[in-house]
């Protein structure tokens, strides 16, 4: 029945209809979700339309990670729909993950009807209470008349300023009730509008430092990518014209191309030797959209002790939170970089050439250490070798990489090169094992023809392996490249270095046969354990038209280096197993 025949005003509709209408108005193409009692009216509306695609997941956590993968690979917000109670609580890990990594998400959850809230009804949970510290903002909508406006506000909040996840909790009676739809154009100007342009005096201070610095370094982060393609383009111009070296956090990989001359590689706990020593020895540090995370700083009092620091961030609470800086610049990366470039060019594009030449000579000495070298083996596949081969065989392809969390994640960051932003999706802040498989599906949904590879460890991968069903159902040809060491590799590494080689619960017992598992899901399984056969096996994975589970049996006891042990400064890095004897004291051991 056409409901418009029964209501004279086309804008009169049910809450469930409003949700679909509002999502369409915001250009949403896909929803990741799972139905349940409290969202049945919304699913009924999804059934009766063809504009928005629904990806049925196997677990709500998977839905949120898929939406994260979608959002990070497109720059658009991801949309999730879950039911009340367990549907919402299962989404919590994904919400915190998105909050920590500043990923814009709109999560709509069903709720018991308003008149039952507070009665411990079936599948009732205090969703807005539980998710309050897990979201950028959240709403419980109690009146259908407010629903459309709330959705418009939700998109505004999620995508404005520092992006983040928002949640809208919609009781079932609000979905059924009828009210007037308020279109986006009727939304009043929102007060929430973080400042985009940087303070002129601060920009000038930054330019003065750029002109005089002897040993400068750009330290960039996920904020550059979140700011958008323009920010990345401006960053590349700035680096090219100044000739300053640049390093990046895990979250910022791809903003500056890995093939670029000024690229030092990733910094931090498992960052490159030259990147960390440049951070330690610099006299001017220009932080663009990074937040001095503890994985980056190491021991705070010894962090880059000789430098003046400039920090560009859109979030005032990130500035001076951990590391006090001399020049705080509150604003959006693209705006600030444009201001800084314009001013620096207008003043004659000056740099300290003599200082810079000496600085590069020093950096090239550090580079010559070749910190990523490892002991090759003809018998077993070294995980580093597996990634080098993956890199070589996918070079030049428009390739999207997701990861799980652990050693494989760090090796992927070290050995794979990212030429463009939005091609690297990894759980940075929260470190969520089980992120990579669903995220790879979300990326593939956004880019159906692209090559999408999830670099995984076998333990992380098992955490959300049910989502292979989703990949099969929606024909998402994601490649699951599992570096299988039958260990929780990073836990094992820490136990070796910090806990007297007592490997408590850190091995993967009773693993499934991944090839048979692939067959059970109906996709392709490949196993490889010999270095000589690896290239052909990887090529077979790349050539297969459909999802692949690749069980790459690697060296079981390989440690991830370089490593800055907990509680140590950047200039006390470990470069290999020989360096590790007694390096971490009791104080370092309490740190994560």
């Amino acid at each position, binding site marked *: 029945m056409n409901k418009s025949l029964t209501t004279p005003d086309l804008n009169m509709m049910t809450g469930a209809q409003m949700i679909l209408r509002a999502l369409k108005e915001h250009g949403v193409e896909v929803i990741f979700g799972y139905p349940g009692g409290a969202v049945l009216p919304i699913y009924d509306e999804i059934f009766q339309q063809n504009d928005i695609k629904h990806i049925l997941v196997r677990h709500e956590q998977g839905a949120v990670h898929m939406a994260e993968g979608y959002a990070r690979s497109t720059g658009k917000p991801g949309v999730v729909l879950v039911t009340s109670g367990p549907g919402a609580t299962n989404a919590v890990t994904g919400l915190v993950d998105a909050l920590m990594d500043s990923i814009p998400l709109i999560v709509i959850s069903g709720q018991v009807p308003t008149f039952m809230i507070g009665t411990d009804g079936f599948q009732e949970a205090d969703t*807005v*209470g539980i998710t*309050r*510290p897990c979201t*950028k*903002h*959240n709403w*419980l909508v109690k009146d259908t008349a407010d629903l459309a406006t709330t959705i418009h506000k939700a998109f505004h*909040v999620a995508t404005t*300023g*520092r992006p983040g996840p928002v949640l809208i909790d919609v009781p079932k009676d609000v979905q059924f009730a009828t009210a007037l739809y308020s279109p986006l154009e009727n939304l009043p100007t929102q*007060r*929430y509008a973080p*400042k985009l342009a940087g*303070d002129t*005096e*601060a920009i*000038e*201070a*930054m330019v*003065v*430092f750029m002109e005089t610095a002897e040993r400068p370094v750009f330290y960039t982060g996920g904020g550059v990518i979140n700011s958008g393609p323009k920010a990345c383009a401006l960053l590349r111009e700035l680096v090219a014209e100044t000739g300053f070296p640049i390093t990046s956090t895990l979250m910022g990989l791809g903003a500056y191309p890995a093939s670029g001359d000024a690229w030092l590689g990733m910094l931090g706990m498992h960052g490159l030797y030259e990147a960390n020593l440049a951070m330690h020895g610099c006299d001017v540090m220009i932080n663009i959209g990074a937040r001095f995370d503890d994985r980056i700083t190491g021991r705070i009092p010894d962090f880059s002790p000789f430098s*003046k620091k400039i920090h560009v*961030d859109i*979030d*005032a*609470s990130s*500035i*001076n*939170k951990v590391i*006090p800086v*001399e*020049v*705080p610049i*509150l604003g959006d990366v693209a705006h600030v970089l444009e201001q800084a470039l314009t001013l620096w060019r207008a003043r004659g594009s000056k740099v300290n050439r003599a200082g810079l030449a000496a600085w590069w000579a020093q950096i090239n000495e550090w580079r010559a250490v070749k910190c990523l070298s490892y002991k090759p083996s003809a018998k077993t596949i070294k995980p580093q070798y597996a990634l080098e081969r993956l890199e070589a065989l996918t070079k030049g392809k428009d390739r999207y990489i997701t990861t799980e969390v652990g050693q494989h994640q760090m090796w992927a960051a070290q050995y794979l090169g990212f030429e463009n932003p939005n091609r690297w999706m990894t759980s940075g802040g929260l470190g969520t094992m089980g992120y990579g498989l669903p995220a790879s599906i979300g990326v593939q949904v956004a880019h159906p023809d692209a090559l999408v590879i999830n670099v995984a460890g076998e333990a992380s991968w098992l955490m959300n392996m049910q989502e292979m069903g989703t990949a099969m159902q929606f024909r998402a040809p994601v490649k699951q490249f599992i570096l299988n060491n039958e260990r929780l590799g990073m836990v094992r590494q820490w136990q070796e270095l910090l806990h007297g080689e007592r490997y408590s619960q850190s091995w993967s017992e009773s693993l499934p046969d991944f090839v048979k598992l692939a067959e059970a899901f109906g996709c392709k399984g490949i196993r490889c354990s010999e270095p000589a056969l690896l290239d052909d096996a990887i090529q077979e994975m790349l050539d297969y038209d459909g999802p692949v589970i690749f069980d790459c049996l690697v060296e079981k006891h390989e440690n991830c280096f370089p490593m800055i042990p907990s509680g140590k400064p950047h200039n006390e890095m470990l470069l290999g197993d020989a360096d590790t004897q007694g390096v971490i004291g009791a104080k370092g051991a309490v740190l994560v």
Partner: protein
Amino acid sequence: MSALNISKGASSHSAYELRDSHSQTIESHTLAILVDNESGVLARVIGLFSGRGYNIESLTVAEVDHADHRSRITVVTTGTPAVIEQIKAQLGRIVPVHEVHDLTVEGPSVQRELALFKVVGKGDARIEALRLCEIFRANVVDSTLQSFVFELTGTPEKIDAFGDLMRPLGLRELARTGVAALARGA
């Protein structure tokens, strides 16, 4: 210009309020937070304090603009200068928070708290309690032959002082509203 000598703005949302962040002195600050009076806003604010390990010494909240649904939350908090700056920045990024004012640094302010004291006693103690009540300009808002309830308005220090005096005289119960504060002048 010296690159180090950049101006420090006065806006509460500014990141430029860079006071000596290395100081480890614990300071007490009174913050006035203007928020949309929407569901859960108080939980958001106090959840920030508990979640990030900040202190709340005193908390007062009520709607102050009915037409605009605006509430004013007054928080007295303690921390090092860096922590205080971080608290203000964290409060500033809560979506329904409109303004954050640090009344301790933004100029002189008046701070007042209201308290009710129930004092139970007989004979000389009862007479002494009533005499002190007059000295402190407290009001008697309830009396029986065994008890008084005194109402006192003043700074938290004055309330503390009166409480200390009432304790040996039979102080049975004490209720305090927490601090309400406004900047002095126009």
